[in-house]
């Protein structure tokens, strides 16, 4: 008898407990939804501003007059752009003429994983600037690739595949002209290689990059063919990914 007495309140109290829990869930979700609703415009604007600021670090805003955000295409080149995911290409134009592009390639072989970059390249193939967007390199050693930590990354400004010549696109330890950091060679090596590969990619695909409709994919094969010779001239000393890219 005592048992059945105890059971009824338990069932009831379970229902009440569930109800209270559900009530709190609803209130909690409501609170989050309200906040989301009142902040999402501001957050979107922040994200856009942040991206624009990063893009303008690489390519000054006065150099172009088009809407950089809208004039983008997605391209895929696992060998030269470091990822098999689509890479965004921002196309800067001035008075309708092609001015420069900003690529967002990946240096896949950083010391602790991929390093994401922004590489700005003038129409004539010289670099407008390079910045690191995201990385997980060792603080104090590899993080000198950040512009806040050292001006090493600024050393890329104005360089191209001719100046310095292709074989000098490596850190000093590998016989190139770029400084490595004390205690960190892997990180600068990865960045130098990624920047060089971006330049190679741009050299091969330049006209296709500017010709394509916004947000269409650049067709690899057409753009690559006229520049096949260039490819074979490339030195073999540099890296594995590099030699793989010669088979494409």
């Amino acid at each position, binding site marked *: 008898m005592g048992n059945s007495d105890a059971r009824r309140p338990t069932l009831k*109290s379970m229902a*009440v*407990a569930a109800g*209270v*829990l559900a009530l*709190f*869930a609803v*209130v*909690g*979700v409501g*609170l*989050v939804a309200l*906040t*989301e609703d009142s*902040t999402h415009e*501001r*957050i979107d604007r*922040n994200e856009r*501003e*942040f991206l624009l600021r990063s893009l303008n670090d690489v390519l000054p805003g006065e150099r172009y007059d088009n809407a950089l955000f809208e004039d983008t295409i997605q391209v895929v080149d696992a060998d030269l752009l470091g990822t098999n995911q689509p890479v965004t290409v921002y196309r800067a134009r001035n008075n309708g003429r092609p001015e420069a592009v900003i690529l967002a390639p990946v240096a896949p072989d950083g010391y602790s994983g991929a390093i994401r970059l922004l590489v700005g390249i003038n129409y004539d193939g010289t670099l407008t600037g390079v910045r690191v967007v995201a990385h997980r390199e*060792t*603080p*104090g*050693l590899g993080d000198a690739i950040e512009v806040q930590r050292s001006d090493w990354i600024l050393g890329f400004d104005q360089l191209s595949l001719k100046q310095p010549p292709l074989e000098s696109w490596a850190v000093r330890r590998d016989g190139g002209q770029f400084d490595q950091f004390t205690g960190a060679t892997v990180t600068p090596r990865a960045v130098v290689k990624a920047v060089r590969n971006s330049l190679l990619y741009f050299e091969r695909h330049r006209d296709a990059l500017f010709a394509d409709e916004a947000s269409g994919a650049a067709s690899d094969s057409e753009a690559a063919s006229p520049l096949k010779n260039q490819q074979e001239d490339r030195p073999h000393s540099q890296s594995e990914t590099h030699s793989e890219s010669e088979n494409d």
Partner: protein
Amino acid sequence: MIKEIALQGLWKNNPGLVQLLGLCPLLAVTTSVINGLGLGLATTLVLAGSNLCVSSIRNWVRPEIRIPVFVMIIASLVTTVELAMNAWFHDLYRVLGIFIPLIVTNCAIIGRAEAFASRNSPLPAVFDGLMMGAGFTLVLLVLGGIRELLGHGTLLAGANMMFGADTDITLHVLADDSGFLLALLPPGAFIGLGLLVAAKNVIDRRLELRRQALPAIGAAASQAG
């Protein structure tokens, strides 16, 4: 009462140094003073908010479902704070990144909800949240200061992320490139926290000895007299 709550949060029962709660964000974020300050303020906000909510509902939530209710309250608050930071302190949000959602897992918060807020009225509960948060922030600041000073030779670098673009109050204390790398790496965080805990224990011991010594001296003096 108020004095006792403050003393508990800031010193005697400090979440970082005594309860050793919330170590994950504490160790991960303290590479600079400003990072520590940002996470500390966010945590304090959540602590005060969750203590207030928990305390206001303490009389009509049954004990058997209190923990899931606390978890839901804390999770909603953290998400709200995260969205707000993303909207108003975007740069800092980028630096603190995943550690804001991780405030949910900071045991100090549910610990205070359970140990204090669910047994006290809202006003002391909020005050307890603020003081516990302040104690946590203090540890974040000191540990961040030590690591930033040793690792980068600066203090307060990156203040512009919190206080607007034109507040650069970075102090270059040591010469450039004199960084002591270990301080910035995870082991440095553990060693730094260990030293802080040790320092607190030493101070407590001294205070205790002095307290014991004082009456003894008094007694001796009265005997001699």
